[in-house]
């Protein structure tokens, strides 16, 4: 079979050598030799025919393939003979490989994988920029103007996505321009896309996720009706799962817009001959006109220009993104490294156990390179099997993780959360294969090189040369493992501690039982908010209703520059416009003075309630009631949201609260100003229902429908769930960190155990002699424990140093609250955990050591 591949058959070469010898003999006979002497001389000058053939064969270009097949067969035979070895190494590596594969898959889905649409690289998202401002959304008329620019664009599409309700289920609904699906032409699973020919007909195309959510993947869905916010749409198509949207949030359904939405996001397909820079330059006049109409203040127009960003993938790959992702990926990769160290260790013991076999092969003429290649092939076989198993494991973990994500999210958030399908593609397979191949080199090369160096004579005589060096290498591997897992444990502990600290931050108000209602969209929000407030005020199910210019836990309240008259302005003060009920509904104590009166609110009186921190900062030790505060913008401009509020009088002092995000902690200062629902800044509501179940989501929906033809303009989330949602990131980070740390730790314990057990098996005789000479069991245990402690100790020292550096990197990526990353607790905790691991790893080898029978070992020749 091999000869078939070779360019020149072996026989042909033999023929040539034969011809050579005959020529030579003839020549020698001519020069006067006897035929016999001539034959002998010819042979002699040629040297070994076999050697020449061998050298010819080795120079052959197909030889490596033939040897590879040989090596593979040999490796497979060898591995099948030791299934336990095969199973442990493959499983260990599979765990490590699956972890990096998971990280890469997520990165791939959001950053690397182009959208499954026609020619994604020519798609550009349009935005506008000026020197002072910028934005991504445009008015419908802007879209129409941009659509005319056929000199720059092949097509321009618009998308206005919002949430809708269909039979009680929340859906992400994309209202798109009628050319949307034609332009992108994503693959259809069922039916057809809508086109311009459909006009404004009430038709809908489902995404794969929406199909499952709404119709449980019913193949007879075409032609069925879909109710959405009281209107009926006919299902005409279902997309394949590859296309979910042109950003990172998957849509459930697409509907051609019938009404002009207030704001749309615009994506353009650039003509082949036009570069983004050219398009940007050509759009400047049009953009200047648009920006003039969008922004309110003339100084924000300066430098108006178009902003084109590539929309080939959900998140563009930038250096900034990589600097955030790299440390996270490194943490995932570290687990793989510990797995490699374990497998390397096992391979090393196997190589030492096989030193005789290798010595025999060396003495039979195999070259060192050949032996190394053979052992590497064995590593490759393990790595490929592990890579396949790792892919399976990763697929399972991603499915389980997605399910876990949705079940652990607070329900009101989960209903609106969407995840892109975390599926594998060519890139992931390629990555998994490359990672497997790299690990094969990582874990198999050193043992292979070491094994091939075995001194022939020693090995054949049965002596294990190189054992000492081998054990030193093994120890180094274990030390490295311990160091890596300590780093991961410290990181995990820090993240968990950070989460706990953030969760423990006293909010200063009571979110329990309060429902937040925000008005979405950018049109007449305050009209909707006012109508809803009026409706709820007379509804017997609502005990209390307050309006605000922004609810706590949703946004950071706005900063202002405020100070007592004559004093320098201090930063860090925030303000919120609230109705008088705000303090009672959130149970924020009024510590001095009084709350706002209804009259003050209605008249937008020049009064304020300040937080305790503000009172202390402005008038330390003095009574703030009755004093005045000067308010201005940080840059000295008037606060436009507060026309006329230049000076206000303090009427009360409220307790300190966390008004925005829990990570930020309590406000450094807060000023509350009065308003009523009639105020144009009232765009959010707080409702405390009378009794726990008085105002469920369904009841609220019913009220929303009475207030607005479009109930999805209102977003209702219980404040307590919003608190959980804010904590979710911290919990998730701590969970993932702990998981990585735990896996690395288990691998290290296994590695440590392996080294101890191996050394023990080598030292059985020595221990036997020691016991015969009177060493107690305790002394033997100390011997084993001492070795474990030494290895773990060195590893821990290195690990602590690396963790120290890693924390500095991590603190640049993760937002922390009131926790220094160089906190003693996680470091001490990590060291304790590793110490415990060292004891666990040493326990069984130590116990086995005490059971060594001196008489037995001394009698048996090693």
């Amino acid at each position: 079979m091999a000869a078939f591949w070779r360019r020149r058959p072996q026989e042909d070469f033999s023929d040539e050598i034969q011809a050579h010898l005959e020529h030579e003999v003839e020549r020698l006979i001519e020069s006067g030799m006897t035929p016999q002497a001539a034959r002998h001389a010819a042979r002699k000058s040629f040297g070994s025919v076999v050697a020449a053939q061998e050298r010819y064969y080795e120079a052959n270009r197909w030889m490596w393939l033939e040897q590879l097949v040989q090596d593979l067969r040999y490796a497979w035979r060898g591995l099948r003979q030791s299934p336990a070895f095969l199973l442990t190494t493959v499983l260990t590596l599979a765990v490590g490989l699956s972890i990096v594969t998971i990280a890469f898959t997520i990165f791939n889905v959001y950053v690397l994988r182009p959208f499954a649409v026609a020619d994604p690289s020519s798609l550009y998202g349009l935005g506008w920029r000026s020197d002072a401002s910028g934005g991504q959304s445009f008015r419908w008329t802007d879209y129409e103007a941009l659509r005319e620019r056929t000199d720059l664009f092949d097509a321009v599409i618009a998308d206005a996505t919002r949430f809708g309700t269909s039979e009680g289920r929340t859906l992400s609904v994309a209202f798109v321009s009628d050319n949307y699906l034609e332009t992108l032409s994503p693959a259809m699973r069922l039916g057809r896309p809508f086109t311009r020919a459909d006009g404004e007909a009430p038709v809908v195309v489902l995404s794969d996720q929406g199909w499952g959510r709404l119709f449980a993947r019913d193949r007879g869905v075409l032609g069925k009706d879909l109710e959405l916010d009281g209107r009926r749409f006919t299902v005409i198509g279902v997309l394949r799962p590859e296309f979910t949207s042109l950003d990172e949030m998957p849509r459930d359904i697409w509907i051609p817009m019938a009404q002009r939405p207030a704001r749309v996001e615009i994506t353009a397909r650039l003509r082949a001959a036009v570069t983004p820079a050219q398009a940007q330059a050509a759009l400047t006049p049009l953009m200047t006109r648009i920006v003039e109409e969008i922004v309110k203040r003339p100084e924000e127009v300066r430098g108006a220009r178009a902003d084109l960003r590539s929309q080939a993938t959900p998140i563009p790959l930038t250096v900034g993104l990589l600097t955030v992702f790299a440390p996270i990926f490194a943490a995932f990769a570290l687990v793989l490294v510990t797995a490699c160290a374990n497998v390397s260790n096992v391979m090393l013991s196997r190589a030492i156990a096989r030193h005789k076999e290798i010595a025999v092969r060396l003495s039979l003429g195999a070259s060192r390179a050949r032996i190394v290649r053979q052992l590497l092939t064995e590593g490759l076989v393990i790595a490929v099997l592990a890579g396949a198993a790792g892919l399976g494991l990763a697929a399972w973990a991603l499915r389980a993780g997605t399910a876990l994500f949705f079940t652990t999210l607070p329900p009101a958030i989960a209903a609106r959360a969407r995840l892109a399908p975390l599926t594998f593609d060519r890139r992931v397979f390629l990555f998994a294969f490359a990672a497997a191949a790299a690990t094969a080199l990582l874990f198999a090369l050193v043992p292979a090189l070491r094994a091939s160096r075995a001194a022939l004579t020693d090995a054949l005589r049965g002596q294990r040369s190189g054992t000492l060096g081998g054990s030193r290498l093994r120890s180094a591997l274990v030390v490295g493992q311990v160091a890596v897992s300590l780093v991961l444990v410290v990181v995990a502990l820090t993240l968990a501690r950070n989460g706990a600290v953030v969760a423990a931050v006293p909010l200063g108000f009571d979110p329990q039982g309060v429902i937040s209602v925000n008005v979405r969209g950018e049109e007449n929000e305050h009209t909707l908010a006012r109508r809803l407030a009026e409706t709820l005020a007379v509804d017997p199910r609502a005990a209390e209703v307050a309006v605000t210019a922004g609810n706590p836990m949703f946004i950071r309240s706005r900063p202002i520059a405020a100070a007592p008259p004559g004093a320098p302005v201090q930063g860090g003060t925030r303000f919120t416009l609230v109705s008088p009920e705000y303090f009672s509904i959130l149970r924020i104590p009024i510590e001095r003075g009084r709350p706002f009166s209804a009259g003050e609110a209605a008249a937008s009186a020049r009064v304020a309630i300040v937080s305790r921190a503000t009172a202390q900062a402005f008038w330390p030790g003095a009574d703030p009631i009755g004093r005045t505060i000067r308010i201005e913008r940080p840059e000295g401009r008037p606060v436009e949201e507060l026309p006329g509020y230049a000076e206000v009088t303090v009427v009360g002092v409220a307790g300190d609260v966390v008004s925005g995000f829990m990570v930020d902690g309590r406000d450094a200062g807060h000023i509350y100003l009065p308003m009523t629902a009639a105020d144009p800044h009232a765009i959010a509501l707080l409702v405390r229902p009378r009794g726990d179940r008085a105002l469920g989501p369904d009841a609220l929906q019913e009220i929303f429908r009475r207030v607005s033809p479009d109930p999805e303009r209102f977003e209702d989330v219980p404040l307590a769930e919003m608190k959980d949602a804010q904590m979710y990131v911290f919990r998730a980070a701590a969970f993932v960190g702990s998981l990585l740390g735990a896996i690395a730790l288990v691998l290290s314990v296994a590695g440590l155990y392996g080294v101890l057990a191996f050394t023990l098996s080598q030292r059985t005789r020595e221990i036997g002699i020691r016991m015969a000479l009177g060493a107690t069991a305790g002394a033997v245990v100390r011997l084993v424990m001492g070795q474990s402690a030494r290895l773990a100790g060195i590893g821990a020292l290195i690990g602590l140093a690396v963790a120290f550096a890693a924390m500095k990197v991590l603190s640049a990526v993760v937002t922390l609250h009131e926790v220094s990353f160089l906190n003693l607790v996680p470091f001490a905790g990590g060291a304790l955990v590793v110490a415990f691991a060292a004891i666990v790893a040493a326990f069984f080898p130590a116990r086995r050591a005490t059971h060594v029978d001196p008489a037995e070992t001394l009698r048996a020749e090693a």
Partner: protein
Amino acid sequence: MTTRDDRDRLVLMQGTLDVLILRTLIFGAEHGQGIARAIQTTSDDELLVDHGALYPALQRLEAQGLISAKWGTSSNNRRARFYTLTKAGRARLARESSRWRRLAAAMARVLGPEPEQG
């Protein structure tokens, strides 16, 4: 023809054989044994060609496309595999011979004139 003792001859250094083969083939097609003999005679029997090493070298040159080979009949009517220089081989030979000449000249300068033999 064995006018000299084999031990007295110069053993070829690695890499030199390739150049000598290319050089020999400049006069036309030749088979392996012919090449070996030609090298020996043109070097006044100074160089010892290890016949066993010749064939892997030929194989290597052929794989590199510097020579081509086909079976033919030799002058004494025997079947033999004849090698010819390709265009690439000619170019290589030109390059290599100037390199060797420079090397040999440089070596001679460094080693100086032959010492008087007592």
